[in-house]
């Protein structure tokens, strides 16, 4: 196991070095909020705050062009048209720098969706070219509950390289060849005797999360409560049907496809969508099977904690990152909903 040390002041140099060979996606701080995006030259990375957004946009961008179309008219007979489609797959190698263990786990939850029986070539082109540099969480907060979803603040699942916080920087643990390649000699040093410090921080973080509620095993109670309309009305009451929870969630993958045209040309694009939106299941006939907001919440919770685990050996479609809890303007807490389901659905 290769272990090295990155001094805090060497982080900008490492970032610039990575940027030479690949696109770097990392949390950038602005106005007190750290959010993942493509890093520009000499941008300040924030590896201390828990990022508001997830790193999923690296492999699953919010807007993705499926193809462009051009309608060509035959000059000799303008009523005759031909259609030309052009599509491109990503080719740039990329690295997620500072993915929390929940972000890395999110990618592992997305893989079976886009790399299952039917493969999404746009996702795969990015995923195959992505190296994940994960950052362990020494300071989880109140909203975090990753152990309850099968992860942990120092979980290495899905990471190529793991950064372990210490006082003057990070210990770096290579987990794959791809991760090892990023341990440039002129930037990384020997670990010294920092391991006990890293271990201590780890023990503290895991102790802080020792009481994370278990989000698994809610399948049977969920089915028992499926028709309890009062229950679903009650847990959905405050929901504003915005898109925050789905957009911030590392495991949410629903998208819509739309054509955006300008005259005789245009693009078919894929964009993030949200199951809490009324239009999500609105049919052209006017019928909507999930007209009440409560039905949509039932479907959302059902998908994450019942349908997905039933098809993936009990693994929930949730990383316990707490982003939805932190940012929901109406204070909806998914931990409480699952807890209520488990207690009431007996």
């Amino acid at each position, binding site marked *: 196991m290769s272990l090295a040390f990155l001094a805090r002041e060497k982080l900008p140099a490492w970032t610039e070095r990575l940027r030479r060979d690949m696109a770097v996606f990392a949390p950038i701080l602005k106005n007190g909020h750290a959010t993942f995006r493509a890093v520009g030259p000499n941008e300040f990375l924030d590896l201390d705050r828990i990022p508001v957004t997830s790193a999923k946009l690296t492999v699953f961008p*919010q807007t993705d062009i499926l193809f462009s179309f051009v309608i060509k008219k035959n000059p000799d007979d303008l009523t005759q048209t031909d259609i030309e489609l052009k599509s491109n797959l990503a080719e740039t190698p990329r690295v997620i720098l500072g993915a929390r263990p929940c972000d890395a786990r999110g990618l592992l939850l997305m893989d079976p969706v886009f790399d299952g029986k039917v493969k999404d070539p746009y996702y795969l082109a990015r995923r195959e070219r992505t190296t994940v540099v994960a950052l362990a969480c020494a*300071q989880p907060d109140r909203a975090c509950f990753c152990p309850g979803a099968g992860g942990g603040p120092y979980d290495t699942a899905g990471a190529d390289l793991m950064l372990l916080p210490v006082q003057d920087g990070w210990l770096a643990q290579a987990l794959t060849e791809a991760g090892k390649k990023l341990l440039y000699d002129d930037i990384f040093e020997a670990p010294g005797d920092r391991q006990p410090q890293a271990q201590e921080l780890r023990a503290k973080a895991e102790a802080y999360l020792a009481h994370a509620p278990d989000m698994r095993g809610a399948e049977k109670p969920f089915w028992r409560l499926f028709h309890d309309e009062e229950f679903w009305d009650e847990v959905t009451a405050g929901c504003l049907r915005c898109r925050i929870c789905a957009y911030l969630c590392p495991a949410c993958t629903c998208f819509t496809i739309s054509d955006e045209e300008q005259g005789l040309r245009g693009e078919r694009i894929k964009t993030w969508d949200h199951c809490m939106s009324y239009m999500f299941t609105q049919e052209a006939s006017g019928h909507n099977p999930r007209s009440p907001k409560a039905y949509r919440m039932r479907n959302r919770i059902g998908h994450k904690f019942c349908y997905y685990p039933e098809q993936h050996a009990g693994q929930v479609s949730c990383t316990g990152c707490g982003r939805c809890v932190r940012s929901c303007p109406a*204070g909806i807490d998914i931990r409480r909903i699952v807890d209520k389901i488990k207690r009431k659905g007996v």
Partner: protein
Amino acid sequence: MSKLDLLREAIRAKLPELDLVLAWGDDAPLRAAPLFVRSEDDLTRLAHPALCVTNGAVYLYTLRSKKIGLVVKGCDSRSVIQLLQEKLVARESLYIFGLPCDGVIDERKIGQEITDAGRTVSLTIEEGRVRVRTTDNEHVLDLDAVLADRCLRCRYPNPLIYDELVGEAIAVGETPQEPDDLDAFENLSLDERHEFWMETMRRCIRCYACRNACPMCVCRAHCLADSRSQHWLSLETNVSQKWFFQVLHTLHLAGRCTECGECERACPMGLPILLMRRKMNKEIKELFGYEAGIDPTATPPLQTFSIEEDKIWEREL
């Protein structure tokens, strides 16, 4: 009796006549969430008034067929008045508990004062101070330093509409003269202002929380921004589409926005979008001498038409 106790008793007394009461519950230590009180048991969860940041008026339109009680601060009451002006809710279906308010805590400001706000265990409010106990520390902050900006410039601490007032009305004294960010913004050149908004829109994730948290946004599934039968907006998340949406939203709120600030509070990115709406309101005030959410019998200026508008004068642009 504390204001919280008075509120609890007031709600308890009226609850049997109402389908539910919209108040605030202490679900997270730094701010309270909307609480839908349906039974007396729910009353044990009522939150301290300084944490009651959300605006319950946003639920009124969906609940308009029910008889509901609603606890309002001054700012919330203006949203209720605006909804009444536009006949979006009926006065008879509401029982309003007016809660005079000294100001609410902005959790983001606590996050600016202390680095481990996310690990808060408890928050207690004492005379002019806030004691925040986190996992590893105890912080004592000045209440004034963590009150929401809009509270610092609040002109309506007492609700403008209510069926009963909970506690004593607050004497309206001098509003503290804080440097106004709107003035500072207006001193920027047009190019600088444009760059400010473009940079802000780059960080926007088009989650529509600002729209959905707004009590005046009742279009819901029919919102122009979501309409696919007319492609007013494309679904691309680029700066121009996000900017188009913000401008659209602000224009649709002209003469209707009561500056409750929920749009900005709901934004997960902390974007300063309330600024745009305040600027719009300033224009409306100058043009029509009108302020939204004050008089339930008034008509918003952009929802009426006269050949001769008494309030529009020739303006130098």
